[in-house]
Structures are given as structure tokens and as C-alpha cells.
């Protein structure tokens, strides 16, 4: 099963894609995606309900978040009320160690994204501020990366034995599916995704 684990819709301030249009694009272009995860910036989109789109297009549409820390941006899967009460998703200076710890405590999974990106990626901060306990997975294939950024992410993942996910980081419709994550299991909901991420049964891929 292949999911794009990093997408943004118009619910994000810089997103220009409607979720329905993502679905239409995936089907029209026959992209080999079984679904995608909406990771809106600095928030969890509690209100939107995409079940009718899932049924109409035969796609799995899950919701997560992209939060900001002093070590860069972090995707959080399995957001629940406990986690939302644990820290302020809107802040840009959340401590990475706290986000990792609280995600684990609340049954979620936190994954630093685009680690090779300047300013908002893990690697540069890791070099300057030192290591942080609790990182187990990073996004090594990010569709918005410039030359060398995904390579640096992969280098770190291999060096530290981190698992790898992929996501398009799409903000416009035509970018969805540039990268994705292949899971060994069939996933049907966010709990399945969290279980699979915890178990490590996945890898980053470029959908062909």
C-alpha cells in the first residue's frame, strides 16, 4: 500500500489545493497512490470530514499535522485531544525533544520532515545544537527539496539507523505523489498508520 504522507490543502495558509482536486488528479493521472495524509501547518484540522471523498474516489484520506520546533518541522501522525493539550501546535519554537516525548506518551508518532532543508530541517540544527533523543524516523524523500537536501537526509538516516518515509509536501494539486511511503500492511485508518509507523513496516519510495 502506498501513501503520500505529507500534503497540504487550502486549510494551510500557503496551501492552494482542494482535497477533492487531489483525488481527481490522482485518478485522472492514474498515480499509484492508495491515499494521502493531510499534514496542515501548525494545526490539526479537526473539522473537515473526507469520508464521502474516500468513498467516491476509493482513496484513504487521513489527517495529521506539521508542527514547528527549534530543530525544524515535524510531522505528527495520530493527533488526539491529549496531544493537542500537551503543546501549542501554532507555536514555531516548540522543543523537539518535548514534541517527540509527548507524541510517544499520547500514542502518536512524530517524524522530522525535510531534514536536509536549511533553517527548518533537522540536520543543520543537529550539527549546531547537538543530538536529540527519540528520533526514530525521518522524511528522506520530500517533494519540495532542492538538490542535496534529500541526500543529506538519507545520509543522516543511514548514519543513525532511522527509518525513512516519503511525502510530496505538495501545496498544489499537481505535486501530489512526487514521493510517498510504501507500507507492508493494508491500512484503513489513522490507528493502522500509527501502528505501522511504530512497527517500522514501511519505506520511502518514488511512485512509478
Amino acid at each position, binding site marked *: 500500500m502506498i501513501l503520500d504522507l505529507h500534503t497540504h490543502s487550502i486549510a494551510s495558509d500557503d496551501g492552494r489545493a482542494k482535497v477533492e482536486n487531489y483525488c481527481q488528479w490522482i485518478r485522472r493521472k492514474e498515480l499509484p497512490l492508495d491515499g494521502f495524509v493531510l499534514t496542515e501547518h*501548525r494545526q490539526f484540522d479537526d473539522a473537515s470530514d473526507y469520508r464521502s471523498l474516500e468513498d467516491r474516489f476509493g482513496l484513504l484520506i487521513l489527517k495529521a499535522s506539521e508542527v*514547528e520546533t527549534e530543530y525544524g518541522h515535524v510531522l505528527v501522525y495520530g493527533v488526539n485531544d491529549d496531544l493537542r493539550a500537551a503543546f501549542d501546535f*501554532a507555536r*514555531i519554537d516548540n522543543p523537539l525533544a518535548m514534541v517527540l516525548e509527548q507524541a510517544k506518551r499520547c500514542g502518536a508518532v512524530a517524524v522530522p520532515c525535510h531534514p536536509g532543508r536549511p*533553517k*527548518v530541517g533537522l540536520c543543520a540544527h543537529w550539527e549546531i545544537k547537538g543530538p536529540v533523543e527519540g528520533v526514530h524516523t525521518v522524511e528522506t524523500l520530500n517533494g519540495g527539496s532542492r538538490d542535496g537536501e534529500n541526500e543529506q537526509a538519507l545520509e543522516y538516516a543511514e548514519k543513525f539507523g532511522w527509518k525513512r518515509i516519503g511525502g510530496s509536501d505538495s501545496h498544489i494539486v499537481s505535486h501530489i505523489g512526487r514521493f510517498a511511503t510504501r507500507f507492508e500492511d493494508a491500512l484503513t485508518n489513522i490507528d493502522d498508520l500509527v501502528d505501522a509507523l511504530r512497527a517500522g513496516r514501511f519505506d520511502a519510495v518514488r511512485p512509478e
Partner: protein
Amino acid sequence: MDIEELKNEFTGHVFDKIDLKVEEESLVGYARACGETQPRYIDPEHPDFQAVPNYPTRIHGTRGLPKNFPIDMHRCFDAGKSVTVHAPIRSGDQIQGRSEIADIYEKTGRSGGMLFIVHRMNFYNQDDVHLATVDWRLVQREFD
């Protein structure tokens, strides 16, 4: 600079108003400048003649930011506008634009930290019908 304090002090109240009459030639000229070809936007004789949806983005108030706002407008750059159309703007309408700060938030990107200010202008006609909402995002980068 504390974002919550800024939001509490400056968001949610009208700080500027502007009144203007919508002229036929302004509607046609703007539509043509946008490359519009649909008769309802460029032909005043069309029974549904009206402004193109992005027409209100051309209208500015007398102030970009509220008085005493602790950021200099000239140190911000334009991060774009979004328009929500509620009802058509027609030739001859006497419209009023009311400005407020809708949101203030921070984010980080490839170039570093940024402060976003959302200047919202709501437009109403002579019957107080809500015509459009324009959200204009202004950005100040951390090194500015």
C-alpha cells in the same frame, strides 16, 4: 514581540473605512486588464454585467496597518491576496471597504522566521449587503 499580545490588541476591530462608487468603465477596464473575455464582465449591456471576482483586490484603504501597530508597513512585503465573493459587485454600487486585522501569526521557512499579518477588507454595498472579503497577507522576515 509577543504574538498573543499583538493579536489581543489589534485583531477583530475595524480600523479604517473607505467609500467609493463603482464606475462602469472601471469594471470593464479592470476585467480587460485581467484578460477576461466573458461578456458579463466586459459588456455593460449584458443583463448580468458585474465585476470580475478579484475586482476588490484593487481597492486599498487609507491605512495598511492600524495606528500604533508596532511594525513599519514599509518593512513588510506582499504575500498575496485571497478573495471570497459573497455577492456580485455591480456598476453604480456605492461600496464601503472596512479594514481589520484578521490574524497575526508566525511561521518558519527556508529563509528563516516570518511574521504574517492578515489585513482583511470586507466590502458592503449601499444596502449593507456583504459583497466580498479580501485577505491580504503581509510578511515581515526576521532579519528585516
